């Protein structure tokens, strides 16, 4: 069995050695060098194009970020006249102590109209 194994090893060695002779280095074709330079230049162009695209994309992204930042920082005057207070602020203004006093006076002066309102309070 051991002899078989070593014999097999020897056979494999000789097969691999003959493989080297069976695969000689092929001769390069006449167009090897021109084709190589063509491929180098093609890859150069592709990487240049990719670089330009990347630069453009980065510039556009930076511009968009700047725009978003400016929109956040600069106050928007167009809507200021309509929405100059929040809902809670308006509600607080409505229920302010001055308003309550006026409502009480109105209730005394016009009990018909404000009795329901006082009853509800």
């Amino acid at each position, binding site marked *: 069995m051991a002899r078989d194994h070593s014999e097999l090893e020897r056979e494999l060695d000789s097969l*691999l050695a003959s493989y080297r002779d069976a695969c000689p*280095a092929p001769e*390069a074709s006449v167009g090897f060098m021109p084709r*190589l330079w063509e491929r180098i230049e093609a890859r150069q162009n592709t990487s240049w194009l990719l670089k330009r695209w990347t630069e453009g994309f980065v510039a556009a992204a930076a511009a968009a970020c700047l725009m978003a930042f400016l929109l956040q920082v600069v106050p928007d005057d167009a809507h200021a006249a309509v929405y100059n207070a929040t809902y809670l602020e308006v509600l607080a203004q409505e229920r302010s102590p001055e308003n309550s006093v006026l409502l009480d006076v109105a209730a005394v002066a016009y009990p018909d109209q404000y009795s329901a309102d006082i009853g509800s309070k």
Partner: protein
Amino acid sequence: MLVDFEVVRKAQVGDAGAFNLVVTAYRRRIMGTVARMIGRPEDVEDVAQEVFIRLYYSMDQLRSPEVFEPWLYRLTVNASLDYLRKRRRRSESRMADLSEQQVMMADAAAGTRWSEEEAQRAKTREMVDALLSEVSENDRVLLTLKEVEGLSLKELQSIYDVNESALKVRLFRARQRVLKAFARSKDEKAAANAKVRTANSSSGGK
């Protein structure tokens, strides 16, 4: 070194003439190594060009021209591995995927006469190709560099950048796998021959 360090240095700084000199000096060696690693003569030139394209674009990463050769071998190994992986993924049947015997038959049909010596070489190529297909692409390349190209462990160490014992283990395992496949193919061949002999004797007896 097949070229002077000075030529490598010039190529590093973008001298096209020096780069041409490097390619011309190493072309034959690289094509031979690629041929034995991929086992497809028709694709050798393509893969060799890929090696030199990678060389062109990574020349500036080479720290010293003294390590140029192992580094070029590393590029060759990587380009061949990429090719082998791609080839495994391709499933369509092309002329290149036919066995050597089928190609021989196609050539014979086209009127090309094969010498006996060439037929024997083709048989060897097919046999070794089949055996090496039993191991991974990495092991195939490693075994080819060691057993066919005859590179020393030290040279392999500088190419793969791993320690000697790890390399020895990998080589031993890969070789054992190939040896097992070799034994199996021999058994199959013996069984097929026995079958033919039986068929012949039974037809002769009738």
